[in-house]
């Protein structure tokens, strides 16, 4: 069976390689992907349109902001789906443990984590807030933030982390993130533009239309960050304990 399953893999691989022969050269400026009006538009106009130096962020959060919204929703769904599967389940996968052994938190690890967690959190905020000028943004910031909570859960135990970030709040925060994202889009729609047309926010913000996009992007990134943070932690909490929120790693 394993051998047979190798065949489609090989077929796909051969196909991909076969097509790779036809690729435009790496970095060739006349290749369609770089020569198309789209790329050149992004390269030359990102600063003009949005005042954001980091083109990637502009494309992600503004030009293709709709995609990003649904990517956030995907993250949200992942959390919800895990909750749906694990919550209250007698556990299709569970080993039916009769006993739980607790591990006392290790002194060295807890001390390291104590020192690290605030730094990690401030780093996550930095990543989130500087998505405009350097790589990063809501998703990365959110992941780092979520990792800080996971770190707490790993070094003490899950209960300690859950005291700081209860699971109910987790989903509230996750939902708030999406509401923030969608709400900014909705607000710009009510102000007369299309959905997610941040420029219309200039009507209520004391800035130019371009800067409105800039600031709205920040808001959007915060929304993404909230959702990702909450879901990452919720994922860990649910997965490691089969949804019981007791014991676990």
């Amino acid at each position, binding site marked *: 069976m394993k051998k047979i399953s190798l065949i489609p893999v090989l077929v796909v691989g051969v196909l991909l390689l076969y097509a790779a022969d036809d690729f435009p050269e790496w970095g060739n400026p006349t*290749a369609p992907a770089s*020569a198309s009006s789209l790329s050149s538009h992004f390269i030359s106009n990102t600063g003009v349109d949005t005042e954001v130096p980091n083109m990637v962020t502009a494309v992600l959060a503004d030009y293709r902001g709709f995609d990003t919204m649904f990517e956030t929703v995907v993250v949200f769904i992942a959390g919800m789906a895990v909750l749906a599967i694990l919550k209250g389940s007698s556990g299709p996968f569970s080993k039916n443990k009769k006993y739980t052994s607790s591990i006392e938190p290790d002194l060295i690890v807890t001390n390291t984590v104590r020192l690290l967690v605030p730094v990690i959190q401030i780093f996550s905020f930095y990543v989130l807030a500087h998505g405009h000028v350097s790589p990063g943004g809501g998703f990365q910031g959110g992941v780092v933030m979520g990792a800080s909570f996971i770190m707490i859960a790993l070094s003490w135990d899950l209960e300690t982390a859950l005291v700081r970030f209860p699971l109910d709040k987790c989903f509230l925060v996750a939902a708030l993130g999406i509401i923030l994202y*969608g709400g900014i889009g909705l607000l710009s729609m009510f102000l007369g533009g299309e959905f997610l047309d941040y420029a219309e926010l200039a009507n209520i913000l004391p800035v130019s239309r371009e800067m409105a996009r800039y600031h709205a992007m920040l808001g959007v990134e915060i929304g993404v960050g909230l959702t990702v943070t909450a879901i990452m932690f919720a994922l860990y909490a649910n997965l490691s304990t089969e949804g019981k929120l007791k014991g676990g790693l």
Partner: protein
Amino acid sequence: MMENAIAWILIFPLFGSVACAILRMGKRKICYPVAVLSMVGALWGGIETLMQVVASEEYTVSYIFGGWTLDSYPRGVGIEFHADILSILITLVVLGVGLIVALYSKLPVMEETPGKESIFYTLFLLQVTGLAGICLTGDAFNLYVLIEVAALTGYGLIAMGSKRAAAATFNYVILGTIGASLYLLGVGYIYIKTGTLNMVGIHDVIEANNLADSATMQVAFILVVVGILIKMAFFPFHAWLPNAYCNAPTVTSSLLAPLVTKVMIYVMIRMLLSVFGVDFSFELTLWTDFMPWLVVVAIVCAAVMALAQREIKRMLAYLIVAEVGYMVGGVWIYNYYGMIGSIFHVISDACMTLCLFLGAGLILRKAKTTHFDGLRGLFSKMPLTMTGFFIGGFSIIGLPPTCGFFSKWYLITGGMVSQRWEYLVVLMFSTMVMVVLFFRLIERIHLAVSESGENLGHGHGDLGLTEEQTRFDEGPLSMLIPLILAASVVLIVGIYNQDVVNLIKIFLAEFNLPKGVDY
């Protein structure tokens, strides 16, 4: 408000789902009205958009998110919602099915997934969001994202079912991920070669640069199509479907069964016609020659497997696989009528599958089983349910006043015109299989036959049923009304089919599909 109707289609369920997620604690009962209301809102948006599309000159409404208007920016800056007639039709189907299932969901959700109502409705609404978005989007990558939205919610929804659902979901996850990845790879290849992700843009680049010969595009085509075929549970890739739909909660299966595969067929049609173009898809590849044969294999296998089932839901699941074969075949016989048939079958199959699954849900609720043996004499117990159920069944068979007949009609006509006799024969074969299946069911339900087939009672209508088994005992109204609604939709779509077909014809007018052959 009006000009943004197309955006509201997604905004309503999206915000509804988030609201449901926030209502997690305590106020679970509010989730049901929230879900229904947001579905109503979305449906309003859909109808409004349909009006706009029909009223517009080129029968398309192009809505670009983020205000990147077409006049001052090149196409592909910003994500476009490209609603032409086809997409808005399928969207309306999605929303309609969503609304009916949402109406239906009140009791089953409370009973089957106690304590998880809010999660359920969150995922439910997001599923509808994803599916409606798939139909509307005009951007190849956005399509992928929305496919993922739909797929992930699907995993969650299915896994909430019985104990075996988790294992079934696992299969689904694996195959679904493979399919989506292949699609994504294909989109990546397209982007390498064309430099745009906008569907119209891709088509224009392909036309302008004559990219049909390029190996990259060919491979991209293969990847995209195979990915979609996997996602739609086309025959060799169908393994996940029956288990998943059988073990899923009632509401889930009634939502997913009518929509998921059909929407993927819509995606295939969209890719073939609008993105790659007719010439690229049908003329320049070998696919047109051998796909109908694959379809033949698919339909025959699925039909035979359906014949072997002894459980309504499982049987219906295999029927869906067979129906997928119909539609794929209708597309690949490369013919005007076949295409009409496929598109119309997407619509009608959604309606009738909805009808059947809603009926199966009610049966499950009353009879506590969907196994054939448990169905004896159900007709006298719940005549309305059974009538609704069998209207769906007749539609699947293809009996005239129902919409199933008309789609099948066009499929047959397409097969005839393109002289794909193998497709025709297999269509007939599976039709006969469906006749057998449903009249077997009618015998069970109506005439109270047990599986072993021995005589029950003493003839003359004495079925050996107790008084209790035959007493009139319909399902609750909140479930019955949606079923009847669905059944009447089956009939109404059938009766008004020429309006739908005329719309489809408007959509197909711009594509140069072969129409007829001189005999």
